[in-house]
């Protein structure tokens, strides 16, 4: 790796640092705009971009050997498994607040079909 690092990275670091600060400003500014259901995805997208900048440039993962890049990516894989399977469970539970406040009703009798009363 020593050869690839021969030239100075300082201008790149400074540029990426400015980009990170701009992204901080952006995410705070967007938080004050009414974006409704998009607020969470927007905030997470900005955070992801910041994380990618830090990982690729400051942690120079982009210059690392493939084996190390693979190891780093496994962290994301396990995290994706954790989040996706967990939320598959919780987002589909009848005890979730949305289901409690909008209980399923029998279309013919109008009777509440909820069987799980408490959360």
């Amino acid at each position, binding site marked *: 790796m*020593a050869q690839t690092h021969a030239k100075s990275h300082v201008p790149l670091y400074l540029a990426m640092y400015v980009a990170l600060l701009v992204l901080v400003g952006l995410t705070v500014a967007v938080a004050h705009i009414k974006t409704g259901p998009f607020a969470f995805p927007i905030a997470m997208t900005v955070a992801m971009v910041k994380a990618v900048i830090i*990982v690729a440039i400051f942690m120079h993962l982009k210059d690392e050997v493939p084996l190390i890049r693979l190891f780093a990516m496994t962290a994301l894989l396990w995290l994706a498994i954790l989040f996706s399977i967990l*939320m598959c469970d919780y987002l589909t539970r009848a005890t979730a607040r949305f289901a409690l406040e909008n209980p399923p009703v029998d279309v013919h009798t109008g009777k509440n079909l909820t069987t799980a009363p408490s959360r």
Partner: protein
Amino acid sequence: MSSHATASPYLRHQFDDLQQQRVSAALGMWAFLATEVLFFGGMFAGYMVYRHWYFLEWDAASRTLGLGLGTLNTAVLLTSSLTMAMAVDAGHRGNNKAIQRWIALTIILGAVFLGIKGIEYKEKFDHHHVPGPYFQWNAHAHPPGKEVDSAIAHGEVLPHFENTGPVELFFSYYFVMTGFHALHMLIGFGLLATLWFQAGRGKFSAEYFTPVEMVGLYWHFVDIVWVFLFPLLYLIDRT
């Protein structure tokens, strides 16, 4: 890479050359960081579930956090990441003096971050927003005119909830997640201080500065945790 002909004093005998030695260290560090991702990942997963279940309470609790201090702290920590990157860059040139300078700056910025965090924690204690027997929410709607967090200023009072448990839960997550993040920074201080002393004794050279690089990876990881904590805790919905 020539190996045995010009065996470096930095080369441990179990490695073929310095390149392999460095890659081994980096691989181990990244494997460790992957476990750290999952350590924090468990807390983020719990956060996701409760944020979904108790959105209104968590939204209201989130607005009591000081956005100004949080944003400032984000900038401070990102700056400390820059100074850490500069320390590693100094390592590439084998400049121990520069390594020391940048590491000292990194520690100072980290201390500023924790200081601001301390002010925020103090605010939580003052407002009885710390989970436990003294937790108060409804009883203590901020009186208009009193100095309050920016987002709930303008004389706005805190929304009333029948069950304040979910609000308290938000603050539990706030303290545990930021607390573990702060603990990681304290550990980082120890690592950085060690590097500072080692650089002072001229331990590093352009050929060997792996410890600086590895601590750098750790420090940047802690920064990334905050990059996600900040929007999740402070910016749930400010509109």
